[in-house]
């Protein structure tokens, strides 16, 4: 669907050249919700803007449905852009137009007749749940409602791709969730491929099936979400994952663990991270029975990513005659990520 090859973007300025994108390669399939995550300044916004040529790439190729974007004439580009919707962090609605007028705008640009426009606008407003706000002005709407208008507007010309530029970054967590759910519905119902950029791992976790991690103008990691989650290979990916998984133990727990550590020599506090299938197995009761250890669960956290459970348990193991060590070996053999917590 979208094929990006060797994409490089260099901004030239008096104070020297800035390489915003460096040899980026991405493959986005039809129907994907593709997330690009990176810190601010990493180049993700430039990457998104290169897809619809709001930024002209310095070199490299961007193919959408077999069409090479970098070689289009201005008129061809205008036509192509009508099939690529875009929503923005700050919504970018026309303050001089009502909700209806804003959604009608891209249809007017496309030169449709009044009647068709009215009919389409009604349907779009129904889709985003704003039929009762048709005559309101943007200034009278909440952030979430404004983004819904933005989405309706982006969908007006039946795009194949929807680009989301930090679409939820200006919204509170609850509104973010409702907007993400709307995007997911749109992806499922209309089959629209979504490319979104964000600095929040939560957004990625919530709706993306694929993710690319961008750092210092380069894509350092990309693949199916589950793969990145279960096996992040770069530091930056691990850091992003920390924000949604339990890598940092809560403060209260740290005190308790420090106190517990003064106990029996063979007592150990372990952090077990698990992912997928293994969650269904009774591993804790297994080791209790097999190795004669006591297990005291101190902290636990289970989450679902794309329907796959994943989580972390912090367990205090008390055993005799080497039972603890054997138990740890056993857990590792099962494919669990086991880490002995010593210094907290």
């Amino acid at each position, binding site marked *: 669907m979208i094929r990006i090859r060797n994409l490089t973007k260099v901004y030239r300025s008096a104070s020297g050249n800035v390489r915003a994108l460096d040899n980026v390669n991405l493959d986005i399939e039809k129907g994907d919700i593709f997330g690009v995550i990176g810190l601010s300044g990493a180049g993700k916004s430039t990457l998104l803007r290169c897809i619809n040529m709001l930024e002209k790439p310095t070199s490299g190729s961007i193919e959408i449905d077999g069409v090479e974007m970098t070689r289009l004439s201005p008129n061809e580009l205008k036509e192509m*852009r*009508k099939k690529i919707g875009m929503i923005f962090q700050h919504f970018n609605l026309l303050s*001089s137009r009502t909700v209806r007028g804003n959604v009608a705008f891209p249809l007017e640009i496309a030169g449709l007749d009044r009647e068709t426009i009215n009919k389409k606008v009604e349907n779009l407003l129904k889709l985003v749940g704003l039929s009762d706000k048709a005559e309101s002005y943007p200034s009278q709407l909440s952030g979430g409602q404004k983004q819904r208008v933005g989405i309706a507007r982006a969908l007006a010309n039946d795009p194949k791709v929807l680009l989301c530029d930090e679409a939820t970054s200006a919204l509170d967590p609850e509104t973010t969730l409702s907007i993400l759910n709307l995007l997911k519905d749109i992806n499922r119902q209309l089959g629209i491929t979504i490319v979104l950029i964000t600095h929040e791992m939560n957004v990625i976790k919530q709706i993306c099936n694929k993710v690319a991690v961008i750092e210092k103008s380069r894509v350092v990691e990309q693949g199916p979400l589950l793969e990145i989650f279960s096996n992040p290979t770069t530091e930056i990916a691990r850091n992003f994952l920390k924000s949604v998984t339990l890598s940092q133990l809560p403060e209260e727990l740290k005190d308790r663990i420090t106190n517990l550590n003064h106990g029996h020599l063979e007592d150990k506090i372990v952090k077990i991270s698990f992912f997928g299938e293994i969650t269904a197995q009774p591993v804790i009761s297994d080791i209790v029975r097999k190795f004669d250890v006591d297990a005291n669960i101190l902290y636990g956290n289970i989450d679902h990513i794309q329907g796959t459970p994943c989580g972390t348990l912090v367990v205090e193991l008390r055993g005799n005659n080497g039972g603890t060590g054997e138990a740890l070996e056993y857990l590792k053999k099962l494919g669990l990520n086991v880490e002995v917590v010593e210094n907290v």
Partner: protein
Amino acid sequence: MSETLNLLLLATWQTVYMVAVSVLIAAVFGVPLGVLLMVTGRGQILQNDLLNKVLGTVVNVLRSVPFIILLIVLIPFTRWLVGKAIGTTAAIVPLSAAAIPFMGRLTETALREVDRGVIEAAQAMGASPLQIITRVLIPEALPSIAAGITITTINLVGYSAMAGVIGGGGLGDLAVRYGYQRFMLDIMLYTVAILVVMVQLIQVAGDLCVRRLSKNR
């Protein structure tokens, strides 16, 4: 008394006529000039450094010539354009010539204040530069443009006081010829009073327009 009244009425009418026609011309030419100045600017939708530079220079030159000089310098041009170089109608030419570049700059500033993101959104939808100008820039900047027209009108009231130099008449001319040169203090006071009221009315009407236009924004 009735003679004074007649003088005042005629002068008021002349001022209103000169200002009204000039502001109309200033809007008709100044707004497109402002649009051109804005869209050809650096990083804008129709960036054109040469055109921008030329227009900018012409505007700056016109704006730096003192109006009293402009009145005289433009006499041949005025004669060519309206067939005469003196009188109220003739005064409209230099007044407009001064007001167009002023209105252009005010319009340019107003358009620059339109959120870049909104322009970008329109571009992302496949809007052409002309569509962006007519459907995004001007509608979004309309309240500021209206405020600019108000300022231009009030400026023109001030400039029109000098129209007497080329026989344009008007309140300023009356104040100078009767109030000052003939020591008729009452006429001086009346003309000043009328001008104060006129400027007040223009400002109030302009503010009302701006408020109407920016309703719900």
